[in-house]
């Protein structure tokens, strides 16, 4: 049995908590009066501090404590939430991430500087204190003492159990029990009946429940407050019992005995179990349905499924060429099952783009401050799902594009007002699925791309000859050339011409395409079309000459026959008429220089990316094929026509056509022919 490394688990959990803190802060920045967000940020900071201390991240715990204290004061209404405070804690949050990642690093100076900023933010909000507020909890000893003198005492019978993974996730039950003790006179009994035998124990799991009798004048909410950070996942039952004064005194005596250094051992009856299930049962059951799996294990499983698909393909081929009906039946079963397994695997790998988009809220917030521009970020289609490896690789290109929009796309508030636009610029980040692709769009309502400047820059740098005839799209694509920048000023954000070429390279590597639309004075829209997955695709296996090739099925619109007569007629034109529209086509036999004679009945596979189409002329359509994508070697890195390779059932290699590239080539061919008249 192998156990997860608690430190690694903590780091994963801390990263999630930090993301939640950031999201809460950004929401709070929009509505400073949102008490729910104040509570959410406070909870996140408290959790991080507690679990950090538990796992030995002392510097993290100490630093986070100051931010937690500041937010506790906001929570209690002692100081207001301000944008300065939000910005200070956002900066502190980045520092917390560093403290999680490199706890032994030299962080002291940075910590001091950030705490000074935090202090100023708290002071600026009318607090008046010069130091970070001291740690305060809801239930200080003084408060408890005062409560104890209150006349009305209530005996609470509390039973609780924390989620099984509580300790692994950094929740220490002891401080919770201490907080209960702080509330009043308390008797705590551990219920150890669920502890398994050593050989069955998962040592970081928690199998202990607690029964607590608490005599206090505090309201029920004070008890619930103790568990506020784990409330959603735990079982908690609180019963109030009206008691007479002498009983209260007796309970108090028992409770005070618990505090003695030498324990009192007694044969106490086991406490009564909750008669009815706790209200959080359903939540806990739901939480238990989710299992956290390391990403590399999913990749490993994906590789295995890929190998299975290749083996299945081989089996199908053997079965097809054999007359054994039983073998064919088994092969069909394996084919169906491997297809289902592949689909299930794909679903497991899909994650919503919200994980990707979330980080841009912070980026835009920071860019807004840096540029002095008011920027509104709108996100749409955040639930759109994409393969996790695609998501990971999209992060950098999107950062460049969003930075570019903020820095170059959007005008200053003065310029916008002068142009009759709202003062705040708007950036729309959206995602949607479309025929096997995810389309991610970054749209701004800024000044738009200055075509004349792009052309002038391209001509001066020798990218295009003077007065070259280029479509708008071709012109816009020049901005993705290495070192290309029309910015008159280089800023910290952009303008060095580094970045947009990274976008292009990354999107190319993802077998994606970039489309740019821009209107002067109205803004720009850059759309990235990316395949939903990079691992296994449904393909159409075709033959060209003696070679076999795969066309991604998601890009195939239809297949037509190209008769010898049609072929002869279209020589020199390379267009077919398809329902009253002309579609350019490419003879792959010519492109690949097969040197073979065409089959008498060639086929045209009409493919598309977005609204653009091109026909690919092949000798034979073999059929559909589950295609496990293998990367091309570095030697073939520059071959743009192919996006990868796959292994066929008979062991041969088939190249996968890069439809985006071929469509672009077909469209170019069309444009040239049109230009030639």
């Amino acid at each position: 049995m192998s156990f997860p490394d608690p430190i690694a688990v903590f780091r994963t959990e801390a990263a999630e908590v930090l993301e939640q803190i950031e999201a809460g802060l950004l929401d709070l920045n929009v509505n400073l009066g949102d008490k729910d967000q104040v509570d959410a940020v406070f909870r996140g900071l408290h959790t991080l501090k507690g679990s950090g201390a538990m796992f030995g991240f002392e510097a993290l715990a100490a630093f986070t404590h100051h931010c937690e204290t500041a937010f506790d004061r906001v929570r209690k209404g002692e100081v207001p939430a301000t944008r300065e405070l939000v910005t200070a804690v956002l900066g502190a949050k980045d520092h917390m991430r560093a403290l999680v990642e490199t706890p032994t690093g030299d962080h002291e100076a940075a910590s001091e500087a950030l705490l000074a900023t935090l202090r100023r933010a708290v002071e600026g909000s009318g607090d008046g204190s010069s130091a970070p507020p001291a740690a305060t909890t809801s239930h200080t000893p003084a408060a408890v003492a005062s409560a104890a003198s209150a006349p009305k005492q209530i005996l609470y019978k509390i039973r609780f159990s924390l989620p099984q993974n509580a300790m692994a996730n950094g929740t220490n039950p002891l401080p919770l029990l201490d907080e209960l003790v702080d509330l009043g006179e308390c008797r705590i009994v551990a219920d150890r009946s669920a502890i398994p035998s050593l050989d069955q124990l998962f040592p970081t799991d928690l199998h202990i429940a607690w029964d607590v009798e608490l005599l206090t004048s505090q309201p029920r909410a004070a008890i619930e407050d103790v568990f506020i950070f784990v409330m959603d996942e735990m079982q908690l039952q609180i019963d109030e019992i009206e008691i007479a004064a002498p009983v209260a005194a007796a309970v108090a005596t028992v409770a005070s005995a618990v505090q003695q250094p030498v324990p009192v051992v007694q044969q106490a009856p086991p406490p009564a179990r909750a008669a009815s299930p706790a209200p959080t049962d359903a939540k806990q059951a739901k939480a238990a349905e989710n299992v956290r799996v390391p990403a590399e294990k999913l990749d490993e499983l994906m590789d295995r499924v890929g190998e299975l698909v290749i083996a299945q393909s081989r089996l199908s081929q053997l079965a097809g060429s054999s007359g054994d009906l039983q073998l064919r039946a088994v092969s069909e079963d394996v084919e169906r099952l491997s297809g289902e397994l592949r689909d299930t695997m794909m679903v497991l790998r899909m994650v919503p783009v919200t994980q990707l988009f979330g980080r841009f809220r912070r980026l835009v917030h920071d860019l807004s401050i840096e540029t002095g521009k008011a920027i509104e970020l709108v996100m749409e289609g955040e639930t759109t799902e994409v393969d996790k490896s695609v998501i990971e690789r999209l992060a950098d290109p999107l950062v460049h594009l969003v930075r570019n929009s903020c820095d170059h796309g959007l005008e200053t508030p003065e310029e916008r007002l002068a142009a009759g636009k709202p003062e705040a610029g708007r950036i729309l980040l959206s995602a949607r699925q479309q025929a096997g692709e995810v389309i991610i769009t970054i749209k701004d309502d800024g000044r738009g791309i200055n075509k004349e400047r792009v052309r002038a820059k391209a001509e001066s740098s020798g990218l295009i000859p003077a007065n070259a005839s280029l479509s708008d799209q071709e012109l816009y694509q020049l901005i993705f050339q290495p070192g290309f920048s029309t910015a008159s000023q280089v800023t910290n954000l952009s303008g060095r011409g580094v970045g947009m070429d990274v976008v292009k390279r990354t999107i190319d590597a993802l077998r994606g395409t970039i489309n740019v639309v821009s209107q002067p004075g109205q803004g720009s829209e850059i759309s990235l079309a990316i395949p939903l997955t990079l691992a296994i695709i449904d393909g159409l296996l075709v033959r060209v000459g003696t070679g076999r090739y795969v066309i991604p099925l998601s890009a195939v619109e239809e297949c037509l026959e190209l008769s010898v007569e049609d072929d002869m007629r279209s020589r020199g034109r390379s267009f077919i008429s398809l329902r009253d529209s002309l579609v350019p086509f490419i003879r792959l036999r010519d492109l690949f220089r097969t040197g073979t004679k065409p089959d008498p009945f060639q086929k045209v596979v009409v493919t598309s990316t977005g609204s653009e189409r091109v026909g690919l002329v092949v000798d034979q359509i073999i059929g559909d094929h589950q295609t496990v994508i293998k990367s091309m070697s570095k030697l073939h890195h520059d071959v743009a026509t192919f996006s990868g390779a796959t292994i066929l059932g008979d062991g041969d290699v088939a190249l996968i056509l890069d439809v985006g590239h071929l469509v672009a080539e077909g469209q170019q061919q069309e444009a040239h022919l049109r230009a030639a008249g």
Partner: protein
Amino acid sequence: MSASDVKESSFSLPSNMTVRNITSAHQDLLQFIDQNEATSLVLATDLQADISTVQLLEAARIYASTGGKSVSLAEPATGTLLDTLRRSGFLEGMSREDAQFWLHQEEIQ
């Protein structure tokens, strides 16, 4: 063979027995109990303990008794271990066996 005939073997627990290190201690202890009839657990003088320590030792008691073996503490719980027992309510409602195991107390006080 009477209980007194069984030779007690000592197993020294690591000084860090908190949830951060409990996994390795778990494996080692399990192996040791498997190899010995009676295990005496030696607590480090600077033992760092938390609720996972208490839980592990309780699980060890269950495992040993199921296999007809025995586990005991070489010395009664003190320091952070005793503090954890107290704060987590393990000292409340202790049976005679629990008191003997954790505190080496024969009588219920």
